């Protein structure tokens, strides 16, 4: 008899509560979405499994002991992994379209408007200022930046905000087009843009160096993200460090993605996740995306008032940094209006500028709130 009670107390079933089972179901849903619908499977799968693991009774997330806690502590709490991901993104990004048409940098800033609208919305719904900043940054559509900011300002919000950011990134093709069509006329969507000029190698080498200097001089708190980002890009464009550039965008990126995913999932235990605020985060997330799209399009229309060579306002919507989904959406909506209109490369300009914009917005939040 004593043996049986002993056995029972070492087993985990006893310490399970209903919330854990709900989290299992959420994990199963994410696993389904990742495998069947291919919604960002490279991230969603590790996240989903992290959720499952942390909602099984074990010490895997116990501070100072558990495996996933160590991943989380050294990777995210110390904010090491998001900058490493930025290193890889930098090595993958071709800034040619931005250099050929630097005006698109402004569009990358404009789309950050959605961040601040969601920030105000979150404040109105009763989030603290720090939490509202993290909710707002979802509107930048940048997963690593969201996680980076959450780790510094509101670690309890990290899991849900990361999941919201990544799942809405997968939904960019659904969220953006209605907003874009609402705010533009058929004629505006038909605007064809002059082909981009060729960008020389030296220009591409100068770009990451100048970007690092300017961004860090103005916003020192964006240094870890933008510093790594520019290093990655320099490795790529230098042409002499292909091995490092390839490692940053392939092996290193894949390795840190595993650690990032599983430990972000591990922050979502039932006690933290199952609160009414989570629903608000998802609602605000979609508002943030829609507003970011609107701000980008409106800024592009505003710039057209002054420009001799008109830009197609659709590319403003690509200022949300979901690369390259947002650029693809701009291209698709444009080609629906005029099938011979090829906006894809033009939209890549605001798109990669949006990555810089979101990192800067995160840095500005940090500089005031940390």
């Amino acid at each position, binding site marked *: 008899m004593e043996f049986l009670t002993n056995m029972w107390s070492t087993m985990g079933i006893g310490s399970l509560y209903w919330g854990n089972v709900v989290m299992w179901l959420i994990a199963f849903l994410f696993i389904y979405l990742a495998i069947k619908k291919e919604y960002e499977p490279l991230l969603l799968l590790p996240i989903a499994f992290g959720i499952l693991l942390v909602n099984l009774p074990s010490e895997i997330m116990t501070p100072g002991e558990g495996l996933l806690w160590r991943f989380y502590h050294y990777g995210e709490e110390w904010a090491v992994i998001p900058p490493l991901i930025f290193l890889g993104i930098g090595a993958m990004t071709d800034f040619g379209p931005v250099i050929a048409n630097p005006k698109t940098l402004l569009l990358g800033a404009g789309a950050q408007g959605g961040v601040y609208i969601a920030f105000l919305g979150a404040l109105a719904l009763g989030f603290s200022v720090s939490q509202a900043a993290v909710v707002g940054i979802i509107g930048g559509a940048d997963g690593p930046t969201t996680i980076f900011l959450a780790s510094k300002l509101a670690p309890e919000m990290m899991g849900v905000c990361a999941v919201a950011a990544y799942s809405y990134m997968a939904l960019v093709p659904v969220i953006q087009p209605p907003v874009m069509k609402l705010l533009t006329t058929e004629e505006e969507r038909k605007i064809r843009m002059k*082909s*981009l000029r*060729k960008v020389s190698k030296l220009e591409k080498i100068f770009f990451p160096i100048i970007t690092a200097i300017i961004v860090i001089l103005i916003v020192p708190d964006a240094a870890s993200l933008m510093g790594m980002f520019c290093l990655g890009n320099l490795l790529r464009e230098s042409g002499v460090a292909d091995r490092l550039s390839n490692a940053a965008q392939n092996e290193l990126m894949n390795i840190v993605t595993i650690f990032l995913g599983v430990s972000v999932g591990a922050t979502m235990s039932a006690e933290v996740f199952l609160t009414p605020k989570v629903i608000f985060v998802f609602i605000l997330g979609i508002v943030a995306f829609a507003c970011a799209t609107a701000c980008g399009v409106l800024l592009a229309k505003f710039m057209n008032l002054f420009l001799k060579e008109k830009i197609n306002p659709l590319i403003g919507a690509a200022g949300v940094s979901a690369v*390259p989904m947002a*650029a*693809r959406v701009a*291209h698709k909506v444009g*080609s629906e209006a005029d*099938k*011979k209109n*090829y906006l*894809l*490369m033009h939209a*890549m300009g605001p798109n990669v500028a949006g990555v810089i914009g979101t990192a800067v917005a995160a840095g500005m939040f940090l500089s005031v709130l940390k």
Partner: protein
Amino acid sequence: MAALESPMAGKVLEILVQEGQKVAEDDEVIILEAMKMENPVFAPADGVVKEIKVKVGQQIAESEVILVLE
């Protein structure tokens, strides 16, 4: 005679016409892949394909000549 210039940089995924074939304006002639997206390129005018200057799998730059119509 009209030349079709590539509207964007990309990889030639498929060539849908042959030399000597008659095409009408706005017919799809090749499919270009860029950013993992398939983009059809359309004939600029009615005519007969005189020469195709690209091959499947080839990476082409913006405003490179894809084919010549007659």
